[in-house]
């Protein structure tokens, strides 16, 4: 887990190809943030589970007291206590 914003910027070279999605994560033991680009929809939003739809895969995030921020460039930031992050899929979607 990347702990500081400075470390996050230094690690930006580890992004996945921009055509699918990109993910950055940072935070402390009590509160984390995940920034996702490449999300096209929100399938489920509850306090302890969020399901996001990407171009080729789905994202499952489990945690507590989570909230979503949607940016004008379609990036999504999830804040809260994040317990797990799972990526499912990979088939081509039309």
């Amino acid at each position: 887990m990347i702990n500081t914003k400075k470390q996050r910027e230094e690690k930006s070279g580890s992004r996945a190809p921009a055509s699918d999605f990109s993910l950055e994560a940072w935070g402390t033991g009590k509160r984390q943030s995940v920034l996702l680009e490449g999300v096209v929809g929100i399938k489920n939003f509850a306090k302890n589970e969020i399901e996001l739809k990407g171009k080729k895969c789905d994202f499952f995030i489990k945690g507590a007291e989570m909230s979503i921020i949607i940016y004008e460039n379609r990036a999504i930031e999830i804040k809260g206590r994040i317990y797990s992050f799972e990526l499912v899929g990979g088939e081509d979607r039309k």
Partner: protein
Amino acid sequence: MILRLDYIFFGYRVIKIEESELPRALTYLLGARMQARTSEGGEIVIPERSLSKYRKALRGINYSVSECLGVLGFLKRNRNRYGLALGILALLVYYILTIGRVWDVRVSGNEEITTAQIKSALADSGLSEGARWGSFSRSEVEMSVLKNYPELSWINVNRRGVVAYVDVREMSGNDVPDKAPGFSNVVSAVDCVIEEITVVSGVAKVSAGETVKKGQILISGVLPAELGGGFTRASGIVKGRVSESAYVKVGREEEILVSAEKELSGLSVTIFGKTVNILKKYGNLDMECDIIETTDKYVAYGGRVLPFSLNRSYIRKKVTERVVYTDEQLVKIAHSRLASMRLSVISDGELISVRTDGGFDGDGYFAKSDMFVVKDVCEEKIIQIG
């Protein structure tokens, strides 16, 4: 939930959407590239300025919108309450004009020097009620007051809110400057007849019963050859019989200071040790007046003193009044004043004899006392060598 500053100042709304429709609403907003943030309760916070765009993006979703919140919302809700707006504006103006000024100057630690004198000296240096805090330097004020009042040994000016607390310390009797180095004689301070002489160091030049003049050497600091020669600092106790007199004249008509009715000059309340001013007439009390301060404490049933008290201060101005005395009053006043003068003359000696006389003259009455007093007549005089 932490809100953005622009939301707080320019207004924001809270959209409540059913839990089952929330993912669809968020997807619509994501597709429309519209910024949104959800709270932990699933509400969406949007800026007020974009409300119509959000309504358009969320068509087909059941939602409710709150009223405008934040500063803009407050102003919109109260736009017809002119009194409230005027009140807030007046408060802001009052705050800006007064917060940077000195409201009160409180002096403590003084005994001989009056508070009015110290406040007057502070005012000359720039610190007075109504002055701007930035218009004077506290350290310069302290130095200036110390320079003008050598009776003060220390002064400190502290700012607490809008009140200046000035703490002073006066020179005590122990702060006597050290004696200058060198040799000296003991000379007579007045014309007198020597009653007794006790030499501590030096050589006696007079004896009991001798008449001496002012400035005459009583104990010499020049040592004779048989005592080793050289010089010393002469010291000792020399008592002489001195002729003193006191004279008083009281005119038939006089202007005297009479106390007027007392008037309230300040009112404050002390609650749990903290004093709050309710009323105070500002300005230096440099007029002739008496200052009376009273504190009323309250006792509950059972004898328990309550933790608050009412403090009142009054001034009783003195006004001049012309009076005409009768003969009896003249004699009484003259002899009363003469008695006070006699006391001050004999305060540092022992009264041997006194003769008092008095009489009427053209425009009043005079009284006089001739006294013989035995007192210390020593005075140190440095020997100039070379």
